Every structure is written in structure tokens, then in C-alpha cells.
């Protein structure tokens, strides 16, 4: 079955890869498939951006939640290349599931995706560790080029590299470069356009006693070299394209020969470092020019200081929050008005049922997608700068100890805080967390943070039942209630994370071990490309889901069984006329009756028995359903139902709600009901855009569905407790 899945996965990739071929017709010449590999912080992304610019596409690797970034580059006027940007890694032995996509690519020579050759980026100022990955790749026998990046930094550190000698030792072309400034790109492109053979040098020979086993694997799978066969022996359990029989075969061999993977792998790494040391001895000389402490260290003394460090970090967080919360509201307003204008224009010039579908269904849904762009762009501008400069590593460094207790990661603080503005960009920002379990937990709990869409609901309901009284002279009771709701969400997020930490089992071991990068200036081109990429990913992947659900919600709210809506309209109009109401009053009465007769209204009635223990009636039920488009719709729906007209301000809505009576003639919205509803809104997953973002980030429906069930379940139980206790 594995083979079958693989084939379908390949077919998908094949279709995705079809468009460059179409382009290739326009630009005649061969299309070389090039894989870009390197250590994290070795300037790989800069190089990828320099080579491809905006000709990038983000897709999926089959079966994993890793973005598959590919781009095309015009190497010469005749020659184009498809470049695949692989996740940063320190070795060809994957330590996380995300790194597995690299070995999946290099292990399967028969794959259509198998690269024609490999460009390895290496940080020249830290050559020893960077060369480890290079030597492994070279031993795989693929044509390889070494892009020796950050030559300027190396020189500043007093590292002098004899490139000619190194090229001789490594047996592959070496291009000294500075990808940030674009130095060396032209030379690299020329080399990339040539046909290269396999690397001449070998850096590691498997021990003699392993050869019988290695050779059997090699001939059984028809592999092109011993080292690849050795990797099969190490990794067979995790190679996705092997069948169960293949795995059993390798397992039998490893047992027969008493193969100890951990010890062998450790010895291989030690041998490789020994070989690298010998090479570097001949090719690299270090003259310590600066005796001063590196500037990075001096900066760190302030930026990771136990007082200043946290103050500065919270300042940065505040600025970020301000951007997503306040700055983004101006462009969002423009988008809102723009969509409303187009809607108005179409409605005033055309008529018919399809026009309603177009304006209230499709365009409204499209507006609901576009409205997130400013927040996503701003948040990712910040995050890209933090990542680029190396500050994000310090954030993790300072927050790890606190967040780890709750099953979160130091970096989880960024999604959690951003979640107070909006969960959609926040969930997308969890991508910066390398560890899968930490990332999943962060995505799962972020929507529990009270987002800005809950504010209208909070203010209306708090205004309804909490008196406007001062407390202790400086505080206000309503303010305290609002604060309480935010804290409730925060603690729910933290405790849920802690519970998930205990529940979620992973086979993957979590390490903190990582390079602590030096501070650098951000490259604005990379920041810009990140923003474009994230916005595109949201609009085209999460956007589809949002659009589909908003059209569905529109249908539910605008249609009813048979001629129920027409009847409701006639009834409301005649009743209204009989009572001598004004035209505007009749119109809102009509809207109210129509909504009640629609499928959404019927559904509201249908769920009433279920939500009655929480203190809600069918009117609240309808609002809960329509809130799914976005929580702030609650206020609009309530105004429609209580026939105060769509554009009523909050106070009018509040008065109307306060005037609502229950069957005994008492006010319907008692504190018990209002608090129950408030608590429901704190916890419930009522946001299709968030679900769509979770779907896009976890690449499947499992987690968004679990998230919805969990949050709605939590909301239901909490509301039940609140209402039954306060009643």
C-alpha cells in the first residue's frame, strides 16, 4: 500500500511540476532539477531568493507538513533550472520528521523528482561543521557544487580559505560567494548550467566488515553506490517508498550481520570530522585579527539580560501586537469598504437570485479572505525581521524554560500574543517552531486566546449585565470583567497545552541543541518574499475553505424550505401595516422573520433543546451558527433577529437585548445567561478562518476537526456550569 500512496503522491507532484514544462516550451532548452541543501543559517534561503526571485511556488511534500518550495531560475539564455529549496539540516541522518523530506528525495534514484545535481551552501566562517553535510552528500555520488557563503564574515573573523586548494581536496567546483549581496551568483549560475559528473573525492569509506551487508542491499535495490546502501541499512524503517517486504529484507540483513546503527553512525560522524580537520589544516588558516569580544556577545549582554532582555522583548511583542491590532485596521477598513462598494455597485445595477449569490455569498466570502491580508503581512514582516536578525533565537533562549513546562516552545509566545489580535496569522506564525509536537500544541491552543473579533460580543454583553461602577477608585467593574475574560482565555490556552503535552505521544525526540546565530542586518528582499509567500499561502489554501463555508452560511441564512421565506415576508408586512409601523420598522421586521424562517433559523430552533441548559434560546442559537463566519457577526445577527436593523449601533442592540423578556415576563438576559454566553464565546471555536488556517498548517482535517470539537466541548461544559451555578 505504501507504494500505492507513493504513486499517488508522485502523480500530484508531477502535475504541480507540469507548469514549468509548459514554460520550458516558451524558453527552449533543458530544465535541470537542482536541490539546494545546507545547514540552517548558512544563507540557503538568501541564495534561493537570489536565484529565483518571485518565481517561487510553495507546495507540499507528500505526507508531511513541510512546505515544498520550488522556483525556476534562468541560468543562461538557453538553460533553465528548477530549484528545490530543502529544509535546513546539519546532516543526512534526519533528526526530525521535517528533515526526512531531504532523505526521501536523495534515497530514491528512480523518482521523477530525483535531482540532477545538488548545490550545498556552507557558511565559510564556520566551515568545519558545515562541511559535514557536504561530505555526506558528496559520498552519495550526486554531482555537487559547494557554494561557499559568507566569505566576508569569514574574512572579518580572520579565516583565510585557499579556495583552489580546497577545491582540489573536495573534488567539486567551489563558488566563493556572498548571497546577501548577490556576489558570486553569476559564477554559480554558470557552473549550474554545466553538466557535472559525480564528485571525485570520497570522504568516508564504510568499515570492511559492513561491506557484505552493504553490497547485498546495494544489489537488491540496484543502488549506484555503497554509501547510499549504508543509509538504507540505517534508515529503512523511515523510508516512505520501501514496501513492507523491502523493510523486512533489510531488517533481516541488519540482524544477520549484527548491525548497530547508533554506534556506526556515531563513528561515521567522528571519522568525517577527522577527515574534515585534515582537509582544513591544508586549506584554511586562522589569524585572530580581533581580540575584542564579538559584537554579538556584547549585544546579547543587553538583549538577553534578565531585566533589560525581557523588557525589550515585551516591547517588541507590544509593537507587534500594536501592528496587527491597530495599524492593520486601516487597510482592513479600506478592504471592507472596497468590497462593500463593489457589492453596492453590483446590487444597484443588476438584479436576480444569482446576483445575490455573487454579492452576499461569493463577494462577502472573498472579502472575508482578503480582510486578513494586512494582519498577515504585518505580522510576518515582524517575524521575518526577527528571524533574519537572529533575535528569534534569543526569544526562544529567554522563554524556553517558562514555556517548556506547559508543553510549549520558547517561540510559542509569538503566536500566543498575536492570537490576541487574530488567530489566523498567529497560527501561521507557529511555522517558525521546529519541533512538531510543540508546533502542533501551539496551533491547537492559540485560538483560545481572546481575539479582537470577540471584543464586540464582550462589550455588548458586559454592558448588559455588569454595572458601570468604579472599583478601588481606579478600576472599573466592566474593565475588570473584560480583563477576566482575556485571562480566562489565556489560562485555558496554557492549561490545554499542558494537558496536550501529557497526552500527545511522539516518537520524535525533542532537542534544543541548535546553533545560536550571530546578529545580522535583515535582508529586506527576504522579508518581502516571506510576506508575499505567506499571503499567497493564506489566500490560495485557507481562502478556498473560507469561501466555501461563507457561501454555505449565506445559503443557510437566505433560503428556507419551500416558500417559507415569502410567507414570512408577507406575514411580517401585513402585521407591520396593521400595527401602523413605519417602512423602516416593517423592513427590519421582515428581515427578522425571514431569518427565523430560513434554514439557519430552523437550525437554531433545532439546536434549542441542546443549548437550553446553557440558558440560550433559538435566537441565540441562530447567532451562534452565523458567528461561524466570524464572531463579530453575532452582534449583527442579534440586531437582525431583534429587528433593530443591520446597522444599529451597540447601544441600540444593548437596549433591545435588555428589553427582551422571557416567558415569565422577566428580563431574558439575566447575569447568568449573559455570563454563560460570554464564557461560551471565550472558548468556542466559532471561526471558519481559524479552522482553515489550522487545516493549511497541519495539512489535513484531523487537527482542525479535533480543535473544533475540543473548543466547542469546552465552551459547552463551561457555559453549562456557569449558567447552572448562577441561575
Amino acid at each position, binding site marked *: 500500500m505504501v507504494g500505492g500512496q507513493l504513486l499517488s503522491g508522485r502523480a500530484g507532484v508531477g502535475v504541480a511540476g507540469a507548469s514549468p514544462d509548459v514554460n520550458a516550451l516558451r524558453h527552449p532548452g533543458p530544465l535541470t532539477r537542482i536541490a539546494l541543501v545546507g545547514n540552517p543559517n548558512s544563507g540557503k534561503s538568501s541564495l534561493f531568493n537570489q536565484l529565483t526571485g518571485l518565481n517561487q511556488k510553495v507546495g507540499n511534500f507528500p505526507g508531511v507538513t513541510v512546505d515544498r518550495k520550488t522556483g525556476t531560475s534562468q541560468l543562461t539564455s538557453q538553460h533553465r533550472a528548477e530549484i528545490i529549496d530543502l529544509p535546513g539540516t*546539519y*546532516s543526512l*541522518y534526519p*533528526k526530525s520528521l521535517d528533515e526526512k523530506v531531504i532523505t526521501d528525495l536523495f534515497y530514491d534514484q528512480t523518482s521523477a523528482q530525483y535531482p540532477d545535481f545538488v548545490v550545498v551552501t556552507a557558511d565559510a*566562517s*564556520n566551515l*568545519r*561543521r558545515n562541511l*559535514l553535510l557536504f561530505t555526506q552528500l558528496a559520498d552519495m555520488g550526486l554531482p555537487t557544487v559547494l557554494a561557499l557563503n559568507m566569505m566576508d564574515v569569514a574574512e572579518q573573523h580572520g579565516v583565510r580559505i585557499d579556495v583552489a586548494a580546497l577545491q582540489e581536496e573536495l573534488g567539486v567546483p567551489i563558488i566563493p560567494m556572498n548571497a546577501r549581496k548577490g556576489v558570486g551568483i553569476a559564477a554559480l549560475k554558470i557552473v549550474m548550467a554545466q553538466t557535472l559528473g559525480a564528485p571525485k573525492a570520497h570522504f568516508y569509506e564504510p568499515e570492511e566488515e559492513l561491506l557484505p551487508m552493504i553490497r547485498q542491499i546495494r544489489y537488491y535495490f540496484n543502488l549506484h553506490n555503497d554509501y547510499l546502501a549504508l543509509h538504507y541499512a540505517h534508515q529503512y524503517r523511515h523510508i516512505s517508498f520501501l514496501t513492507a517486504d523491502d523493510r523486512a529484507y533489510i531488517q533481516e540483513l541488519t540482524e544477520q550481520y549484527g548491525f548497530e546503527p*547508533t*554506534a556506526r*553512525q*556515531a563513528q561515521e*560522524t*567522528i571519522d568525517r*570530522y*577527522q577527515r574534515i580537520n585534515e582537509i582544513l589544516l591544508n586549506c584554511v588558516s*586562522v589569524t585572530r585579527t580581533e581580540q575584542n569580544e564579538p559584537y*554579538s*556577545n556584547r549585544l*546579547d549582554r543587553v538583549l*538577553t*539580560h*534578565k531585566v533589560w*532582555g*525581557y523588557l525589550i522583548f515585551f516591547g517588541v511583542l507590544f509593537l507587534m501586537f500594536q501592528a496587527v491590532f491597530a495599524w492593520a485596521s486601516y487597510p482592513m477598513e479600506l478592504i471592507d469598504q472596497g468590497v462593500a462598494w463593489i457589492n453596492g455597485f453590483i446590487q444597484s445595477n443588476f438584479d436576480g437570485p444569482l446576483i445575490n449569490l455573487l454579492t452576499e455569498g461569493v463577494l462577502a466570502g472573498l472579502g472575508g479572505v482578503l480582510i486578513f491580508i494586512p494582519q498577515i503581512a504585518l505580522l510576518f514582516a515582524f517575524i521575518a525581521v526577527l528571524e533574519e536578525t537572529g533575535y528569534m*533565537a534569543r526569544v526562544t*533562549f*529567554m522563554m*524556553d*524554560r*517558562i514555556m517548556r513546562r506547559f508543553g510549549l516552545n520558547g517561540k510559542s509566545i509569538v503566536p500566543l500574543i498575536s492570537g490576541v489580535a487574530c488567530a489566523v496569522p498567529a497560527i501561521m506564525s507557529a511555522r517558525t517552531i521546529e519541533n512538531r509536537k510543540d508546533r502542533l500544541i501551539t496551533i491547537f491552543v492559540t485560538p483560545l486566546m481572546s481575539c479582537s473579533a470577540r471584543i464586540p460580543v464582550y462589550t455588548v454583553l458586559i454592558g448588559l449585565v455588569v454595572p458601570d461602577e468604579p472599583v478601588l477608585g481606579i478600576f472599573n467593574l466592566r474593565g475588570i470583567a473584560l480583563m477576566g475574560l482575556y485571562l480566562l482565555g489565556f489560562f485555558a490556552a496554557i492549561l490545554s497545552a499542558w494537558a496536550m503535552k501529557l497526552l500527545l505521544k511522539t516518537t520524535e*525526540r525533542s*532537542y*534544543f*541543541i*541548535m*546553533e*545560536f*546565530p*550571530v546578529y545580522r542586518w535583515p535582508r529586506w528582499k527576504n522579508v518581502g518574499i516571506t510576506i508575499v509567500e505567506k499571503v499567497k499561502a493564506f489566500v490560495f489554501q485557507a481562502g478556498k475553505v473560507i469561501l466555501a463555508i461563507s457561501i454555505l452560511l449565506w445559503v443557510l441564512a437566505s433560503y428556507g424550505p419551500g416558500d417559507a421565506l415569502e410567507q414570512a415576508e408577507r406575514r411580517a408586512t401585513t402585521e407591520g401595516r396593521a400595527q401602523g409601523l413605519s417602512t423602516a420598522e416593517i423592513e427590519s421586521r421582515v428581515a427578522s422573520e425571514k431569518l427565523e424562517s430560513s434554514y439557519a433559523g430552523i437550525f437554531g430552533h433545532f439546536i434549542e433543546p441542546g443549548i437550553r441548559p446553557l440558558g440560550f434560546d433559538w435566537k441565540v442559537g441562530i447567532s451562534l451558527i452565523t458567528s461561524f463566519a466570524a464572531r463579530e457577526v453575532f452582534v449583527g445577527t442579534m440586531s437582525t433577529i431583534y429587528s433593530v436593523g443591520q446597522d444599529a449601533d451597540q447601544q441600540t442592540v444593548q437596549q433591545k437585548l435588555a428589553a427582551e423578556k422571557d416567558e415569565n415576563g422577566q428580563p431574558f438576559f439575566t447575569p447568568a445567561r449573559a455570563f454563560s454566553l460570554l464564557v461560551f464565546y471565550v472558548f468556542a471555536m466559532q471561526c471558519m478562518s481559524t479552522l482553515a488556517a489550522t487545516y493549511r498548517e497541519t495539512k489535513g482535517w484531523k487537527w482542525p476537526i479535533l480543535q473544533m470539537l475540543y473548543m466547542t466541548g469546552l465552551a459547552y461544559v463551561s457555559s453549562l456550569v456557569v449558567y447552572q451555578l448562577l441561575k
Partner: protein
Amino acid sequence: MFEVNLNNPPVSKRQPQTPTPAAPRSVKDLQLGESGTICCLKDPEMALKLLEMGCIPGTQVRLNSRAPLGCPITLVVGDMADYTLSLRVSEAATILLK
């Protein structure tokens, strides 16, 4: 216990040369700014990761900084001060020193 050694016989099994007969020191016990030479790695699986990061037995490491709450820490790895590595204290405790 799994140990990775460049030198044979394993250094950790020699008579301790320092007057303190306590358990072998690990990177966790370094003072700020103090350097040590890696002798071996205790945890076999974590060793694979540490080796790849250049923490080879015989390599010099210096404790560069501690996070405000004491964990994680940063180490400068390599005789030539190749680069800075960050890791948790629990992970540092698996790196034994000569």
C-alpha cells in the same frame, strides 16, 4: 552506558587526576567563561545530534552564557571558536569533560 571516544582506552575510566574524586564533570558544571575538553557523550541518541553539531570528543568548549532563568545555555564550540551552540542544561549534562 554508551560512550563515544576518539582515544583508546576510554579516558573516563582512567584514574581521576584532579584531587576531587567526585563524579565526572560535565559541561553543565562549567563556570561562565570557563573552557573544558569533551571526553565523551553519555546519551547515545543525543550523542548523534551533538556529534553532528561538532561536539566531538577532544574538542574544546567554553560556557559562553546562561539564559536569565539559568537554562538554556550557550557554548562556544571548537578550538578556533567555530560557532556558538545553544542547548538545555539537561542536554549539557550528557557531555562529560576530561
